[in-house]
């Protein structure tokens, strides 16, 4: 397994598959995620991006930050475009028109994955196209100004479900994409986060090498819309793990493995503090929301551990 230094070398310099000069907000976690994932491929990678921050900030014509073949079509079809690329790859290879192996990576935000692109993802997984799907999850539609998505956590204030005099923000829990994906019985699905590069790198390697489709869901704190200082991205990602808000785990051929088990889980307030989307929860009278959140997180964590212990193949 490479060291951080070795990964860093692969993600910079002339051979890097994505280079600097893009227009991500300073401190945005997407850059580190995509760089790390791309570096984990030992074959050329073809990237299919959904509409969203990554696409918008890396390709404002006539510039591009991509040093690897890249394509964008619409918001909800990264998985089906990737399926078409894979079909073309198989056909052209069979007919002797191309040589060499490639990896195909579809990338979308949480909106492009949990919501509008969900059907395309499910179809592509069910058909078992050989590709990896990466969802960078910033828990909302960030490119368009922090609207609610199916990944937005309970209690978060967004521009479409703002906290207000009679609203506490999003009243529903986020959906568990990893388990839904696992229900497709694909060889590999994992949850990772931007702060743990080595874990992310390993998971990306496993995903690329899987015998079939693979999915990575990676937490990416958004400095602009969670509004924290741009130096704190990694800190927030770390807190998400230390509070069990975002467990690092993987499901390999149906078997659950929890990668990190915080010895002393921190209270959820530690993660919520300083983020504008949760500010209203700290107002007097709203304590019950945090209590409810804490309970849900602890229940989910206990459930995950039980799942792992059981050894049941999902």
């Amino acid at each position, binding site marked *: 397994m490479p060291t951080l230094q070795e990964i860093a070398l692969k993600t910079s310099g002339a051979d890097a598959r994505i280079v600097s000069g893009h227009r991500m907000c300073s401190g945005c976690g997407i850059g580190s995620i995509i760089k790390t994932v791309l570096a984990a491929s030992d074959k050329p990678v073809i990237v299919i991006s959904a509409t969203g921050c990554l696409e918008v900030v890396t390709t*404002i014509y006539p510039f591009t930050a991509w040093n690897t073949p890249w*394509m964008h*079509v*619409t918001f*909800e079809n990264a998985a089906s475009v990737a399926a*078409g690329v894979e*079909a073309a790859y198989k056909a052209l290879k069979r007919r002797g028109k191309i040589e060499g192996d490639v990896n195909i990576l579809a990338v979308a935000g949480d909106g492009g994955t949990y919501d509008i692109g969900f059907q395309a993802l499910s179809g*592509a997984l069910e058909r078992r196209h050989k590709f990896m799907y990466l969802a960078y999850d910033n828990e909302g539609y960030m490119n368009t100004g922090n609207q609610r998505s199916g990944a937005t956590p309970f209690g978060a204030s967004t521009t479409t479900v703002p906290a207000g005099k009679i609203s506490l923000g999003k009243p529903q829990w986020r959906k568990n994409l990893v388990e839904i994906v696992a229900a497709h019985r694909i060889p590999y699905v994992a949850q990772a986060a931007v702060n743990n590069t080595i874990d992310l790198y390993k998971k990306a390697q496993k995903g690329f090498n899987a015998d079939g489709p693979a999915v990575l869901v990676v937490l990416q704190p958004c400095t602009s819309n969670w509004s924290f200082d741009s130096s704190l991205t990694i800190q927030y990602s770390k807190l998400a793990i230390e509070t069990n808000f975002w467990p690092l785990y993987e499901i390999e051929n149906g078997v659950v493995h929890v990668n990190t088990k915080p010895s002393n889980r921190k209270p959820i307030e530690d993660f919520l503090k300083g983020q504008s989307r949760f500010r209203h929860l700290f107002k007097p009278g709203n304590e019950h929301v945090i209590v409810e959140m804490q309970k849900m997180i602890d229940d989910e964590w206990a459930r995950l551990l039980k799942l792992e212990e059981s050894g049941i193949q999902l």
Partner: protein
Amino acid sequence: MGVRKAITGAQAAAEAMRQINPDVVVAYPITPQTPIVEEFAKYVADGVVDTEMVPVESEHSAMSAAVGAETAGARAMSATSSQGLALMWEVVAATPGLRLPIVVSLVNRALSAPINIHCDHSDVMGVTTVGWVQIFSENAQEVYENTLLAVRVAEDSRVQLPVMVNQDGFITSHAVEPVEIFDDALVEKFVGVRSLDRALLDVEHAKSVGPLVLPDHYFEFKRAQEEAMSKVFEVYREVGTELSAITGKQYPFFETYHTDDAEAVVVVLNSAAGTAKAAVDAMRAQGKRVGLLKPILFRPFPYAEIREALKDIPVIGVLDRSMDFGACAPVYSEFRNALWALGKRPAMQSYIYGLGGRDIMTTEIEAVFEELLSGKLDAEHQRYIGLRG
């Protein structure tokens, strides 16, 4: 000389696809397009073709996967109808801007609501503004030949645009007719292979396709797209000449039938043109000088050629199988536009017929001719053929 087979319009499309043997076919079933996909799936299952077939979970994904495959460097084809086209609209609209020469068989069917599975042209007329080349086919034979032609027009380096080949749902798609299928080897040579020079799979030359283009460049992209569309005329003629060498037929932008000395001409797309020919024959037998113009290439629209063909016709009736609610019907609009530049313009009448698959009879078209010849026209209002009172 080819082999004559008794097949439907849908099978004719599938026969063309068999001979093209595309790298990738992506499709989702919808009546009346389904038999095309089913027929082609059999070819795949029996190893008659070695196409990679992707049976996707929706039409949106069908068009998306076709776009992915074509960008990767493959020759990709698909087929759909009505609701399917409506669902894939977003990607249909993106395809010409990406300059991808995808060929789609469109089996024309009425759009919901109310839901109806039968023929009209409301599906295709909803996409004529987005930049696909549109070719219409009167019968199964034309479906077959137009599909072969479409691949070459689409992929020509001057064009690089997607093409839809239209046929009437059920009337053409499900009716058995004798169709002459030309020699496999000759057709294979004619369609050739798609060049890989723009392929995303050319990993040595990384390209970024489909970037965000802001007001400083977007306009130029669209102007270039229009330029490519204008090249279709010459390419269509050249490719048509090449195809003639195999088929012995002509590939004009439109067909005229007894228009030379005509006092009244009817304009109608697809299968109803066959009905109109029978009406013309019946009227001619009574000594009435009437004729037909059947548009084939509808996008780009051959304004100048149409104007030339109709410049001496005193009265023209245009029959539309769809409406543009609150405005002139789509085919009528184009013909009015084409003829506007004439010094002496013909009288014109717009007719709507056949919505949701309502039959149109030769007698009804004869009645149209009688009306056109009588001069009792109403330029301000469209008239309806076969509508119950």
